[in-house]
């Protein structure tokens, strides 16, 4: 009898340790080689967009927390920004500073989580705890400010919900100093580790033109060498007041996507420190513009987008002049990145697929909404 081989299909997920939630990847395998990947989504679809159409504008913000729970602040921000653009509300300066501080802290927390989870997916257990340890400092700061550790509901239409307590600023500076120091630990553990390099270099290359065509954004796009960051290219809030760099990598492989996030943590620390300095210069205590609970923006439509830790987070908000939005359409970075996953997984091994998936930093609630 002649020997023959056969391709076989494996359902990776919806419950699988490395699909970060409930994503299902239908893999066609030839031995260990991945011949075809097909992401199947929808296991976490809660129809937040539909629910928002049935809520008043202020009530939508807690729903947006759940769109992407790792960086809820940015989801709050994007909806608040869309509503402010519709109603042309001026946000007080102090609130803008607080928003920037929170957004950047949230970005750092998200990237620290990414660091841990990616290392874990490639088999190194210890960095996971290291990443979460420093993330805890930031989560404590959020808890101090708004009482929540995961879904903050902090950034509201027209401002923020609470002012920071007096001990926030010194603690925040301390946390930034600690994280800045620990960056050396993170890099020391993995950056020059030969096993890590063998696992990540030249794996899952995403070329710049493919990335743009497939709508990939954020750190993944910048790791492919496209210098595109909404904080610089389309400055929202008060990002034009800060001095920071946009790190870019060259190859767009797994290693670049990993190192890109570490570089971004550094820049975010810079922004937070500048914003804390700027906050001291603001004399007005006002943190929220007057917005009635029965907030009715004039009819119109606006697309607000911000750069969160997974890329462009956008909300297309259509108002018909009533107290409920007519349409809320959200796009998250993860959606396009998951869509582009098959591009990167051409003839890779299962282990590489896991590494690639991890460095895309896909978070399923943002995909399914």
């Amino acid at each position: 009898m002649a020997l023959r081989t056969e391709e076989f299909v494996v359902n990776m997920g919806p419950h699988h340790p490395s699909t970060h939630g409930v994503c299902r990847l239908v893999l066609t395998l030839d031995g260990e080689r991945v011949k075809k990947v097909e992401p199947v989504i929808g296991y976490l679809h809660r129809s937040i967009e539909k629910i928002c159409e049935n809520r008043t504008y202020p009530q939508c913000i807690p729903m947006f927390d759940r769109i992407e729970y790792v960086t809820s602040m940015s989801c709050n921000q994007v909806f608040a920004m869309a509503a402010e653009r519709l109603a042309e509300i001026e946000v007080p300066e102090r609130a803008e500073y607080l928003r920037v501080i929170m957004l950047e802290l949230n970005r750092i927390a998200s990237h620290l989580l990414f660091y841990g989870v990616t290392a874990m997916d490639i088999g190194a257990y210890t960095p996971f705890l290291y990443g979460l340890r420093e993330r805890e400092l930031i989560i404590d700061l959020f808890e101090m400010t708004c009482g929540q550790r995961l879904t903050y509901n902090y950034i509201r239409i027209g401002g923020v919900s609470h002012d920071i307590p007096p001990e926030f600023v010194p603690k925040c500076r301390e946390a930034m100093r600690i994280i800045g120091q620990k960056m050396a630990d993170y890099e020391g553990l993995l950056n020059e580790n030969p096993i890590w390099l063998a696992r990540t270099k030249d794996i899952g290359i995403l070329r710049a033109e493919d990335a743009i065509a497939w709508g990939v954004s954020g750190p993944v796009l910048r790791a492919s060498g496209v210098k595109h960051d909404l904080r610089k290219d389309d400055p929202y809030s008060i990002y034009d007041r800060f001095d920071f760099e946009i790190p870019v990598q060259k190859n767009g492989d797994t290693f670049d996507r990993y190192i890109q996030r570490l570089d971004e943590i550094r820049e975010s620390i810079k922004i937070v420190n500048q914003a804390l300095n700027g906050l001291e210069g603001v004399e007005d205590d006002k943190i929220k513009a007057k917005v009635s609970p029965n907030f009715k923006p004039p009819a119109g439509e606006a697309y607000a987008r911000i750069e969160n830790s997974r890329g462009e987070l956008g909300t297309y908000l259509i108002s018909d002049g009533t107290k409920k939005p007519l349409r809320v359409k959200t796009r998250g970075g993860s959606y396009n990145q998951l869509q582009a996953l098959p591009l990167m997984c051409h003839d890779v091994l299962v282990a590489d697929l896991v590494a690639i998936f991890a460095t895309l930093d896909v978070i399923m609630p943002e995909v399914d909404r």
Partner: protein
Amino acid sequence: MTRDELKDAISNKFKDRVTHLEAGKYDPLFEVKADDLVDICQQLKDDPELSFDYLANLGGVDTTEHFEVVYNLASVHKKLRVDLKVILPYDQAEIDSVIEIWPAANWYEREMWELYGINVRNHPNLSRFLLPDDWDQGFPMRKDWDAPDFIRMPER
């Protein structure tokens, strides 16, 4: 290029094939005919001055009078943003796919097809997506969609 310049540039380029809508509060918003859509999108992408090479968002809208499809386009290198809108009557809810221009449209169009029932021509894979495979309760994002456990917020 500022938003006003962009508005003028697009208006001049396409003349009366596009209509500028005042409803767009932030980025310029244009209405496009459904038959004209693919051609205009292709030209927007190919124009060296504009080069809208990035589809940021695509979504259907149900206004209770007609369907709308909104395209949020971006140019990564020129740092421009523009929104396009196509109005579709209920009885002709059908639109051409823009996958050929921006592959990113794939999942967005699939989602729109599934949740609004707007048919997308030339789409390679229109199949169940966010909803369960055995879903038979219609198109949930339409405004007239109803289900026993779906309670609308009262108009106070």
